[in-house]
């Protein structure tokens, strides 16, 4: 691309020079014509004036023809230069295009290579990150499993203890109930034995004890009550 800019700059510079040359020539002709008119106006005699005029006309025709020649030459040169410049421009343009193409191709290759490198780096980073994440995940899963195992163990032990305690309590309660029932039954049996004994004694003593015996027992009870100071 820098070559293209230089080429454009050269074309512009050439055109500027051409216009400058044309401008100088025009100024020169104007000054010659002005000088001729002044010479003519300064003549005092008409003959001399006519002669001068004819000389001037001749001179002007020569100048014009020279100017035309010069201009044709200049135009021709200009055209030639333009053609050369165009040719150069085309060549430069082609060269520039080729350079650009080559440059673009090279840059594309570089970009592709960079992109490939980037992708490779990205891949390696991804792999590394993935590996790190896998390791972290593995660690976390291991920790989680360890915690879960510990919690499960604790829960199992706690449940086992609670179950054992509950079963022991149930057993204790059942044993207590059985013992209570046993005691109740034994107490009932004892009560029945005593009631039976009392009933038997009541029946037997009512027949066997005389009134005197009964009263003797009453007197004995009274003496005992007095001895115990129950009756004061």
């Amino acid at each position, binding site marked *: 691309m820098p070559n293209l800019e230089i080429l454009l700059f050269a074309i512009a510079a050439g055109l500027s020079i051409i216009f400058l040359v044309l401008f100088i020539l025009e100024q020169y002709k104007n000054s010659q014509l002005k000088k001729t008119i002044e010479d003519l106006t300064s003549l005092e005699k008409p003959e001399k004036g006519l002669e001068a005029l004819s000389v001037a006309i001749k001179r002007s025709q020569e100048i014009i023809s020279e100017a035309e020649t010069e201009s044709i030459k200049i135009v021709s040169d200009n055209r030639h230069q333009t053609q050369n410049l165009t040719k150069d421009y085309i060549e430069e343009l082609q060269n520039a295009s080729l350079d650009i193409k080559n440059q673009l191709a090279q840059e594309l290759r570089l970009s592709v290579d960079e992109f490939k490198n980037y992708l490779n780096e990205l891949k390696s980073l991804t792999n590394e990150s993935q590996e790190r994440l896998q390791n972290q995940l593995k660690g976390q899963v291991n920790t989680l499993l360890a915690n879960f195992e510990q919690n499960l163990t604790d829960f199992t032990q706690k449940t086992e203890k609670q179950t054992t305690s509950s079963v022991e309590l149930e057993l204790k309660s059942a044993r207590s109930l059985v013992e209570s029932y046993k005691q109740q039954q034994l107490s009932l049996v004892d009560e029945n034995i005593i009631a039976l*004994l009392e009933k038997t004694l009541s029946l037997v003593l009512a027949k066997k004890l005389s009134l005197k015996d009964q009263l003797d027992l009453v007197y004995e009870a009274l003496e005992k009550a007095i001895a115990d100071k129950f009756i004061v």
Partner: protein
Amino acid sequence: MNPDLQTITDLFLKDSFTRTEALRRLRLFRQFLTDKIFASKPKSELISQEDGPWLESLASDALRLINKDNLNQYLDALEQTIVDIKPLVIFLPFELPLGELHALGSKIRSMLGPKFLIDIKLDPSLIAGCALVWGGVYKDFSIKAKIEGQRSEILDIFKTLSKR
């Protein structure tokens, strides 16, 4: 206490051993004396054979001290004295004949003093012996209480026998 009232009380309680009997006899005594003092002829049909001799004996002594002026005063005081005496309640497992009741009363008075009343109640579950209530406190001296007191020994004997 008035000596005359004391004499009358002693005479009255001499053969009355239970509170129930004493109050019943007081009612008869009051009627008997009222009839004796104010009526021309006592209403002997209301008096039983058992109470008749006792009333006649008591009245002959009491009439020396009681007249129409102090009759109610003395008898009211006598009733109050009977009510004030704290009776010994005796629970017996058998019915006591009247004669034996008097014997028992005499025996108790010989033990505890002349101004003493008893109250007999029946409780066949006592088997033998008696239970006493004195001052609102119950104490069992019967065979039943002895069985209860030796309950464990008795049960042990029964268990030993049953094992054989």
